[in-house]
């Protein structure tokens, strides 16, 4: 076992998960590849969504991969930072909107 939980070199070993369960890995990676193809959304739009989600789930592998991928897809730095702000707004908003629940409870308890 390594002394740290995360090693940048592990990103390149992602495909190795197939060693322990090939069939499910194959299904996952086929699906993964299809998800990121040009569709109703462009490959760049999908890359920016992935970058935003990577920040939401705070996955260092994904942040590494989709920072490079967004640059390669021609995204601007402003677009990339705006994607992270979308994450932040939703995460922050998700907490804040529960304030309504708190207020409801306060109102119920209070005379």
């Amino acid at each position, binding site marked *: 076992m390594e002394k740290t939980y995360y090693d940048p070199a592990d990103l*390149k070993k992602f495909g190795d998960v197939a060693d322990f369960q090939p069939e499910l890995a194959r299904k996952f990676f086929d699906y993964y590849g299809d998800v990121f193809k040009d569709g109703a959304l*462009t490959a*760049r739009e999908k890359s920016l969504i992935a970058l935003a989600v990577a920040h939401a789930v705070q996955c260092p592998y994904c942040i590494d991969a989709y920072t*490079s991928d967004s*640059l*390669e*897809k*021609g995204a*601007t*730095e402003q677009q990339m930072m705006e994607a992270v702000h979308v994450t932040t707004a939703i995460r922050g908003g998700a907490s804040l909107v529960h304030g309504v629940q708190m207020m409801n409870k306060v109102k119920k308890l209070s005379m």
Partner: protein
Amino acid sequence: MIKTLRSQNHSLASGQEQLRFLSNGIFGSDKLPTFREKIDTLGEFPLKPANIEIFQVNVGYMCNQVCKHCHVDAGPDRKEIMGRETMQRCLDIMSKTNIHTLDLTGGAPEMNPDFRWFVEEAHKIGVKEIIVRSNLTIILANPKYHDLPEFFKKNGVRVVSSLPFYQPDKTDRQRGEGVFVKSIEALQMLNAVGYGKAGSGLHLDLVYNPGGAFLPGNQAELERDFKKELKNHYYVDFNSLFTITNLPISRFLDFLIRTENYEEYMEKLVDSFNPAAVKGVMCRNTISVDYDGYMYDCDFNQMLGLKVDKQAGQHINDFNLEKLESRHIAISQHCYGCTAGAGSSCQGTVA
């Protein structure tokens, strides 16, 4: 303005030193396969040319810009320059062979005092296609260059210009402060005489290269973005966008090493190796000529000092088409740059 590696007496100013670096480390320890090993598995070693169609002539390494990624290590301090006699020899070869394209590069080729003479003579003898790789800002650098768009038009030149992004910040970080604004002005001057305009027959192409240690994206998509953004914001038109991968030599190699991106970048190039791109690499149809008349398989090999195979004749005075077309192309690990993804050449993607 940053300094050239040459003026810093940097070890990577030497082609030999670069080749040594590219052969050691991750490639010396068998962590990654060498380019030779890689193409050998495809039965493509030794790499051989097809018909030679393009004479890419580097008329000198002097440039008014010092770009961070420049594979030539060009700059104002570079004095290597091609004389008229060598140019004449190139023209003689072109008039006697089926080589249809004269591709002029540098440095800033326009800074060579015999540049206009060379272009006019090539036009006179009926060279089918004359390409000038212009950095754009040269057009505004001095009043004596302001008429270049007219000069290009008069001689039917195809202009190919670098513009790494359609916004100022990324462009200026790579090519120098203020380069974007000047480049746009130069593009507008080229448009004004008809370049890049539908039906004019005057071709103006742009070259995109990534602003760092990552690969270029889809050429067609980037072309669409560039066309939309440049038209909407600056009323600029152009014909095609060529995406080019940064090759790990000279200043870009120095950048990769300094920023500890070298190994990861080389891994990316090797992982993205595309066998289909090997078929279309530009060294198969191009001969690169230096200011002294020596020949190379490409402009990158020229900068590394890797001349064409000795048996093929290394100087234009010994030009022999048959021998050149049966030569073995000199390769090293930098060649992975031309075979990654959709491939890369002076004409953009190849696969």
